[in-house]
């Protein structure tokens, strides 16, 4: 149904009718999409150029790029940015490698066993961030937590450690929990991708005498590359957005050692009521995510 360049009057009318009916089908969704996604996005960029603080008598004042220049001089923001990158750089490769390893082990198992394993690794996602977080908080607890108990039992820990209240450990505790809540979806995706690999290709390589390692890296790995790319992108986005864990476990403390950009946005906007400043941070975060996704796409394409 390609649009021909010599459109007759009749086909023009057809296009018009098609356009009208298409928009009627799109309308219900567009109301929500434009109203509650597109407009807030535009407002986010717009307000980031204003000094918009709640409780002030005056209207928002246009201050140009001042919010952005302030960001780079704000030590808390810089620390939050560093923490965010640590989380992303540790958790994204860990999640990808771990989920690939698990999937490679389970994808040929029988139906029930496979779905049981898949289910178990998906459980922390379904349980919900708040329920997961409160139980980890208990497990990390200084006095009643099982981490200290098991640690002492194994001789790893000498005295009770205040895991979440100690600058050396807090961020790593967060990364550990984030990891357990992040591998579920990649495993589902990898299992289905590995299951879709054309068996005739694998058999052909067996005839040529390929061993298991070669079979994996030379045949299967290139075929599941699109899935890997998708997993990289969604895991990166998820890690950048890490919020509930931080708000409920440490509130960014101790001494801002677990502040992330997402948490600091929340803190600036809803504790300090500096909307413009928070929006500027949101814009910066979105730019970082867009850049990282673009880099990942480019790298994957080259391969």
């Amino acid at each position: 149904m390609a649009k021909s360049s010599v459109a007759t009057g009749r086909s023009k009318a057809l296009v018009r009718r098609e356009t009208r009916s298409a928009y009627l089908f799109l309308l219900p969704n567009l109301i929500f999409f434009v109203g509650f996604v597109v407009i807030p996005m535009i407002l986010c960029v717009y307000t980031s150029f204003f000094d918009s603080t709640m409780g002030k008598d005056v209207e928002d004042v246009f201050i140009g790029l001042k919010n952005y220049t302030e960001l780079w001089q704000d030590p808390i923001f810089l620390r939050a940015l560093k923490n965010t990158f640590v989380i992303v750089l540790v958790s994204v490769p860990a999640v990808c490698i771990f989920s690939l390893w698990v999937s490679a082990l389970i994808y040929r198992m029988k139906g029930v066993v496979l779905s049981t394993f898949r289910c178990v690794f998906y459980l922390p996602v379904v349980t919900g961030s708040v329920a997961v977080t409160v139980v980890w908080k208990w497990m990390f607890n200084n006095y009643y937590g099982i981490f200290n108990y098991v640690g002492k039992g194994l001789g790893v820990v000498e005295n009770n450690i205040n895991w979440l209240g100690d600058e050396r450990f807090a961020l790593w505790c967060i990364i550990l929990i984030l990891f357990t809540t992040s591998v579920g979806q990649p495993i589902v995706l990898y299992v289905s991708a590995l299951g879709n690999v054309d068996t005739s290709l694998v058999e052909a390589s067996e005839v040529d005498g390929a061993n298991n390692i070669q079979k994996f890296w030379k045949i299967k790995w290139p075929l599941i590359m699109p899935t890997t790319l998708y997993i990289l992108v969604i895991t990166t986005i998820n890690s950048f957005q890490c919020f509930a864990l931080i708000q409920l476990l440490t509130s960014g403390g101790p001494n801002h050692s677990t502040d992330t950009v997402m948490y600091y946005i929340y803190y600036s906007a809803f504790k300090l009521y500096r909307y413009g400043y928070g929006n500027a941070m949101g814009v910066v975060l979105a730019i970082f995510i867009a850049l990282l996704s673009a880099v990942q796409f480019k790298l994957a394409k080259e391969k």
Partner: protein
Amino acid sequence: MNSDSGLKHRSLYTVVSIIVLVILAILFAFPLYWIITGAFKTNASINATTPDWFPKEWVMDNFRKLFSKQSAPLWELAVPFSSKFTADGNPLIFTAGPVVPAAIRWLVNTVFMAVMAMILTCITSAMAGYALAKKRFRGRAMLFTLIVCAMALPKQVILIPLLREMSSLSLYNTIWAVIFPTVGWPFGVFLMKQFSEGVPGEMLEAARIDGAGEAKTFIEIVVPMIKPGVGALAIFTFITSWNDYFMQLIMLNSTSKLTISLGIAKLQAENSTDFGLIMAGASLAAIPIITVFIIFQKYFTQGIAMGAVKG
């Protein structure tokens, strides 16, 4: 074929990996086990420095305490935008049912929110996805680009402007403020477009020749064919909406309006060391959603896999 020793070597590797895998699976399931057993433990057992791996006696104390906290009517619903039309400027509110503990009310709110978001998302996304996949219209390419870009952006960065928008629409602190942005999130349209691509054009053409209108074609031909996709989207929306803590945190604040996630967070803030009470709340939040997930597991995993493969 490898030599005999190679085969043995491989099976040893497999056996070791399977053992490691089983241990990891147990560790992954452990937090959930700890939530559920914790909810039924006595106070002494919870605060023991040597943990009870299995409750010695099962008690309902924690649930009793949870349900003794604040009460609210079972059902209360503000009609969206109604404050614009009433004389006193207050929204129309329906209340019904006996007075129940706040925790039950939070559960009712959460179920309503998730079901409503699910229904609205499925209907609007299926329609929009079909139009994007099967219709050639002006602005199609631009709209699709906009949808893909919006999907890649973090949802949370738009929350600040969204909050102000909601308060100017008088939707702030109503459940609709959480539902509407979830419905607008373009993932559903994207997924439905992928599924609608699979509907053969000849079938649509044939229906048109038979004189079926647009609505009839959609309901009788397209919908049955994209059903698996709609099922996947429904369960996906239900789970993400149930668990979308950040959005709920910002949009809702009065006790009777909270969702179960917010309720537990509040319990934790107010009684930070009463782990039994908190675990009772957490299990109340987790068990329904896990049950839903296990029942519909098949559709769900198929759906995410299909969406990603085609996208």
